[in-house]
């Protein structure tokens, strides 16, 4: 065997001297670099986002046991053995005694490790600065909600009694990382150490206790642990990852999808570049092949030679691309990590290089190989005389193979059939439009006759090179379509996020307002110029029956419906909330007393339709109501949202309810809260401003990442265009030189060339952006859950920009023609 790596390398080095090979290799390097950069960066970003999002739930995963039994120690041991860190919080309600008074509190007793992610915010005294700490109080101490100081009339340093155990108050508990969204904690909360729990004697058999377990570690380990754990879980166990949460996970999922989309587009773009350059290479190799055949080499032997060559290029492209991708992704990660609270170490995820490897192989063997493979059919006769019409053979089949390959690749990469279909649909639409447009254009251009005028010369040029013009336009349009898709998705994604959390998003919730205090609360806040959102009554109850059947039997076992595991907040209202929309049935008629409106996703998972009867258990009461309507709910709106809504004067009205509302409070007016809690000690105030800020931060980080990916993909698009333009470089230069010889002056040549390219670019841009709208229209709804709208700025900017960029390319291409004497150029190009 002679084909040792050194031999390959030498051959590739020799190939490098050929311009087309340089383009193929450059395109390949860019392809691998882009895909690898995106993959590496996406993996790093994922890690970053997961870490920062995990901070909201004090771990990467949560396991909650609502059955009053602690989670078996064996489960935690198993997790630890898998390299997963664990922490535990026991939650229960009890009366505490202090300052001569009793008060109902919600106790959190945390292990040393808590929180695994994120930090606890506390104050040593009411006047001390707020501090972020990464562990709760040590044994013997307790941190309490500031409200308790007033309710019990005690001071920091005093002791309170929790059951049989006296604990010293050493701090004020302001916020726990995982405390944000839970509205169940209506009583003031205290945080103590979990080793003190047995000595309190509070937890007896049958006590209502929840055991929260936190897990943190590598994603793969966590997933594997969950696989191990899943068969052991009972219905009262609730496993949660950040992807299951509502607000954050939506943003994360969209960001992940965007990265995948970006990566897929990069794959497509790079493949186009490789295809264009290798086709050019194959065309130029025909004479060589004919000569080799004349010299006695057989077709299959020649084909094997080229295959070996392609393999060598694949290796070089892969190495080059990865060498480029590592510093690039590192740089991008640096950009992102600056935005994080804690700096993060760069992790090299070797698995992420898989897609890059696949890209290199598919790009070369599906795109570059077919035209090169056909070389073996080049007749030896070509040495004597070129045969007309031998260039287009099998191009259609090649195209089909390439199309299937690349979509297979995108599918493999993004695992989103919708994405693949939307791209395929967009491309098909584009090609259809191109065919029609091209035909019309050429018909129109046929009538233009040439002249000394630059415009006419440009139009004639377009017509004369119609095959090349149409081919270039198709590639440009496709490239621009892919870039436009990303731009469009990016803008609507960012718009979406911005409109999701506008400036005046409610950042405080008031919970547990007694019915007779509703008016006072409203007056209190209105007097202080705080605009209060709607007030909703809230009754807590469980969904127990569907059409008279126990809900556990009615719902198939495979469905994990979290809403069934806990009490739901039920409400009644007269008019539908702004952020709700009816998707089936009708809203309650005025005066209607029967019926319930259910949230759409829950209805789908329960298999509930309009007309089904839902039975609820509320305290000791049971009620049953027919489903009147199904609603979508915007969960991330930061307003009170409900799974179940009843009509006013309906089934809930006579049951004991508390009221809930939300409002926006400017950060500078935090003092209003102190007055409020003094006036309404029983009302719980939930401060969400911190969480909203954090979400905005994350959206900001994701936005930066998206911009970076966009820049990469646009760069890839530029490389494609350069590859396409330089494929015809030699012909164009020869033509320029000849035109100059025939007396075209420089300005005419420059103008007509720039105009020709501008026309090409403008048309390609217009077609591309229109096709992108079609694809985005399909993508938008399915993947990013946004509404379709026309994007006029992009529709105008893209054709203009591509016209400008291409005319500059044209000018650049003409440079040697203008600088060198035409005689020299003609000789050089011969």
């Amino acid at each position: 065997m002679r084909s040792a790596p050194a031999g390959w390398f030498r051959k590739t080095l020799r190939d490098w001297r050929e311009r087309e090979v340089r383009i193929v290799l450059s395109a390949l390097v860019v392809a691998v670099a882009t895909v690898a950069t995106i993959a590496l960066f996406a993996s790093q970003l994922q890690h970053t986002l997961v870490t920062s999002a995990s901070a909201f739930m004090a771990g990467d995963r949560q396991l909650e046991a609502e059955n009053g039994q602690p989670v078996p120690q064996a489960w935690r041991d198993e997790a630890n053995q898998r390299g997963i860190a664990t922490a535990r919080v026991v939650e229960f309600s009890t009366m505490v005694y202090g300052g001569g008074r009793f008060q109902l509190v919600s106790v959190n007793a945390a292990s040393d490790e808590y929180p695994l992610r994120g930090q606890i915010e506390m104050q040593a005294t009411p006047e001390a600065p707020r501090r972020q700490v990464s562990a709760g109080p040590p044994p013997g101490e307790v941190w309490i909600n500031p409200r308790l100081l007033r309710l019990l009339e005690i001071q920091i340093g005093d002791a309170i009694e929790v059951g049989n155990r006296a604990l010293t108050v050493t701090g004020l508990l302001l916020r726990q990382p995982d405390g944000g969204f839970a509205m169940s904690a209506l009583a003031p909360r205290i945080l103590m150490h979990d080793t003190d729990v047995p000595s309190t004697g509070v937890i007896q058999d049958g006590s209502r206790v929840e055991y929260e377990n936190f897990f943190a570690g590598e994603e793969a380990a966590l997933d594997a642990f969950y696989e191990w754990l899943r068969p052991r879980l009972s219905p009262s166990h609730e496993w949660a990852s950040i992807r299951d949460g509502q607000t954050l996970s939506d943003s994360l999922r969209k960001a992940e999808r965007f990265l995948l989309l970006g990566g897929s587009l990069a794959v497509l773009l790079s493949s186009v570049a490789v295809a264009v350059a290798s086709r050019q290479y194959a065309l130029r190799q025909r004479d060589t092949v004919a000569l080799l055949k004349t010299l006695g080499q057989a077709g299959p032997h020649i084909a094997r030679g080229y295959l070996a060559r392609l393999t060598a290029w694949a290796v070089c492209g892969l190495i080059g691309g990865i060498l480029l991708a590592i510093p690039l992704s590192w740089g991008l990660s640096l950009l992102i990590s600056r935005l994080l609270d804690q700096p993060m170490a760069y992790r090299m995820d070797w698995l992420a290089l898989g897609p890059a490897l696949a890209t290199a192989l598919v790009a070369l063997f599906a795109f570059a190989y077919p035209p090169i493979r056909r070389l073996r059919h080049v007749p030896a006769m070509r040495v004597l005389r070129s045969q007309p019409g031998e260039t287009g053979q099998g191009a259609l089949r090649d195209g089909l193979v390439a199309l299937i390959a690349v979509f297979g690749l995108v599918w493999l990469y993004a695992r989103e059939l919708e994405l693949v279909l939307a791209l395929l649909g967009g491309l098909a639409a584009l090609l259809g439009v191109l065919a029609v447009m091209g035909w019309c254009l050429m018909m129109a251009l046929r009538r233009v006759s040439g002249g000394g005028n630059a415009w006419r010369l440009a139009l004639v040029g377009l017509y004369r090179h119609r095959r090349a013009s149409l081919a270039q336009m198709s590639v440009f349009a496709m490239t621009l379509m892919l870039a436009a898709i990303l731009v469009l998705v990016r803008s609507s994604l960012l718009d979406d996020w911005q409109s999701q959390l506008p400036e005046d998003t409610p950042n405080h919730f008031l919970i547990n307002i007694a019915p007779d205090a509703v008016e006072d609360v409203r007056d209190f806040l209105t007097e202080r110029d705080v605009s209060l959102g709607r007030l909703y009554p809230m009754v807590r109850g469980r969904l127990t029956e569907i059409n008279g059947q126990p809900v556990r039997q009615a719902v198939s076992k495979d469905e994990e419906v979290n809403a069934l595991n806990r009490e739901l907040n039920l409400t009644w209202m007269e008019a539908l909330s702004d952020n709700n929309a009816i998707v089936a049935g009708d809203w309650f008629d005025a005066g209607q007393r029967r019926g319930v409106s259910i949230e759409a996703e829950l209805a789908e998972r329960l298999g509930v339709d309009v007309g089904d009867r839902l039975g609820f258990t509320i305290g000791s009461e049971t009620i049953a109501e027919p489903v009147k309507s199904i609603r979508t709910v915007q969960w991330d709106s930061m307003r009170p949202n409900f799974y179940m809504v009843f009509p006013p004067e309906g089934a809930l009205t006579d049951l004991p309810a508390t009221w809930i509302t939300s409002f926006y409070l400017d950060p500078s007016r935090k003092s209003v809260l102190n007055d409020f809690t003094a006036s309404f000690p029983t009302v719980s105030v939930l401060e969400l401003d911190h969480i909203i800020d954090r979400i905005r931060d994350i959206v900001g980080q994701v936005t930066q990442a998206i911009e970076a990916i966009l820049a990469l993909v646009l760069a890839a698009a530029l490389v494609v265009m350069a590859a396409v333009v330089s494929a015809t470089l030699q012909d164009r230069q020869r033509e320029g030189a000849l035109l100059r010889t025939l007396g075209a002056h420089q300005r005419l040549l420059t103008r007509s060339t720039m105009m020709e390219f501008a026309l090409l670019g403008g048309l390609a841009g217009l077609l591309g952006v229109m096709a992108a709208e079609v694809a985005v229209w399909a993508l938008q709804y399915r993947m990013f859950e946004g509404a379709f709208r026309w994007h006029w700025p992009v529709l105008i900017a893209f054709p203009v920009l591509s016209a400008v960029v291409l005319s500059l390319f044209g000018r650049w291409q003409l440079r040697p023609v203008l600088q060198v004497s035409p005689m020299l150029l003609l000789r050089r190009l011969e």
Partner: protein
Amino acid sequence: MATTHPILEVRQLTHRVNPGNESLTILRDIELAIETGESAAIVGRSGSGKTTLLGLMAGLDTPTEGAVSLDGEVISQMDEDDRARMRAHRVGFVFQSFQLLPSLTALENVMLPLELASHPSPAHQARELLERVGLGERLQHTPRQLSGGEQQRVAIARAFAAQPRILFADEPTGNLDNDTGQAVSDLLMALNREQGTTLVMVTHDEQLAERCQRRFSIEAGRLSEPALAAGMEVDE
């Protein structure tokens, strides 16, 4: 048709190129005058500088020293755009390697100079010329579909398309076999006579050179006009 003032005049022309740091003199002290309607051949071995001289005379490049006048205007002092204008209206070219644009049909190739000279009906004129050179049936063929001789005939049609005052030919039969070369040179001479064009060609084909009224030889960058050829008229 012929007037007495020379259509092409070269005075004290010296041309140097700088490959690397060395200065290489390609042409030295060339003196030459061609009258309107004359045909002249410049013969010499490969590398003697004859094609460079042709390019300088046609205004495709400017000489290091000396002057070239074409049709009474000193083109060696013009800027590139003025020279281009001059070429568009008064100069035609025939090249050894034909220099047809591969993506254009025969008709479109011939139309090129007509379009650049803003001719009112370039297609009509081009068709007539192609019929004249015997390619009336091959109008829509691209160069790849034509033989060498046919390609050179298209190139000749293109050269005469804009009715130039002077035609420069660089080894017009150099890439063709004897018979085809003969046919092409017959065509070139015939068209030259019909249109009263001045013809200046560079060749190493002695037979072709002898068909010109004047014959110059170039050796190591120096031009001479052997006495026996001067004023001689050779024709079939």
